């Protein structure tokens, strides 16, 4: 398991390099988006309309940040559970999205699309939201301001800590990680 300091957006080589279990520190711009924004993006695609943000080669962080208090770029901003975006994700990956940051399991369809199009799924520690916010340098709303916390933001991050949960080669830390510590009845 390796440790990397990477610039965002990730290159195709970065994506291929990473393996489940690696630690990464990300620096650069990323998009945010969660349930409501995903629904709108897919609706636009269904209607054959252009998206309000360019997702090609970009990273998306599944987060609905808390409001920023004075003196802060952003409020607490940890990951939300990713599976709720699964229904929309393969389509976004097919359009070039190459990095997702969240927490929790993904569907088989998402994992297949990650291998097909070349994408990684990174995890930030759920509930460590005040700590994570310290690595977010700036925040601006790019689309859907009416959605409030669910708007698409651009965060600029510096040394944002994450763990590779699922890689572009089928590796899945949610399977390999717990395996070593499982001591269920009927097992050695």
């Amino acid at each position, binding site marked *: 398991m390796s440790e990397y300091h990477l610039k965002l957006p990730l290159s195709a080589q970065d994506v291929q390099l990473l393996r489940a279990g690696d630690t990464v520190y990300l620096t650069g711009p990323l998009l945010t988006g969660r349930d*409501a924004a995903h629904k709108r993006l897919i609706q636009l695609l269904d209607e054959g309309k252009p998206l309000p943000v360019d997702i090609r080669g970009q990273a998306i962080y599944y*987060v*609905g*940040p*808390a*409001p*920023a*208090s004075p003196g*802060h770029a952003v*409020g*607490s*901003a*940890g990951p*939300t*559970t990713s*599976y709720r975006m699964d229904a929309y994700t393969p389509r976004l990956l097919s359009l070039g999205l190459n990095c997702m940051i969240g*927490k*929790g*399991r993904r569907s088989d369809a998402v994992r297949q699309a990650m291998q097909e199009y070349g994408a990684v799924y990174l*995890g930030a*520690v*759920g*509930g*460590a*939201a*005040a*700590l994570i*916010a*310290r690595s977010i340098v700036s925040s601006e709303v790019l689309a859907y301001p009416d*959605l*409030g*916390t*669910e708007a698409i933001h651009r965060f600029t991050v510096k040394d944002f800590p994450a*763990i590779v*949960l699922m890689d572009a080669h089928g590796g899945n*830390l*949610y399977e*390999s*990680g*717990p*395996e*070593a*510590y*499982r*001591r*269920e*009845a009927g097992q050695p």
Partner: protein
Amino acid sequence: MREISVQTLSDTVRALYLTANYQIGKDIESAVEEAEKKEASPIGKSVLCQLCENYKIAREESVAICQDTGMAILFMDIGQEVHFTGGDFEEAVQDGVRRAYRDGYLRKSIVNDPVFERKNTGDNTPAVLHLRIVPGDKVHILAVAKGFGSENMSAVKMCTPSEGEAGIRDFIIDTARKAGPNPCPPMIIGVGVGGSFETAALMAKRMTARPVGTHNPNPRYAKLERDALEAINRLGIGPAGIGGTTTALAVNIDYAPTHIASMPVAVNICCHAARHADGLI
């Protein structure tokens, strides 16, 4: 008869939600610190360390522990000698929640319509109120800020009486196994057994706020809590779900009389950031 102004009630609710969202309970912080010492996985240890650091930042800087500052759920035990004056009781409670989430830079996470419109109400109301009338002239308020990543992993099962203790234990363990990494483990698991469909769920919710390290006074239920907790910590899920020996900090069970035909069980999953605060007026 004791008169309590609804403004006092509202101000208390506001203060409790600020405390709950900035300051994790000592019981939870100590349990995470203890778990960090015992955790077998190095990466699991590091996750638990980050959680402790996060609690400290939130407390010292008065910022939200988690960006999901939750749905406001209030359990209020109202003394029957109390007379509320100066306005509408429920509106005063809702306004306390509204002011806490506005003034405290807490996230507004409530949508008006669950299926069709899903428009954010903009002030984190309405809060959910559970009221009980009790003897006396005091008002006890338990203010819970419940995150919904973990709420989504909760489940209810109407067991048959023949399923017995094993049926309850297995359902708790299965619910935790299915939840896996999604609810931000280490989890705190509230369980309600008995009563009816909805009272089981209500007991389970209350149990997510029972202090970690306390046990059901009935030794048979205390053993069930212990057995379920030990089995869950053998699942391997670990901190953040990426492997380890700390999957849950507590299994808290409450029980109530039920019907001859049934044995309801509700499992309410809470993340490690089980935020709640209580106050007495």
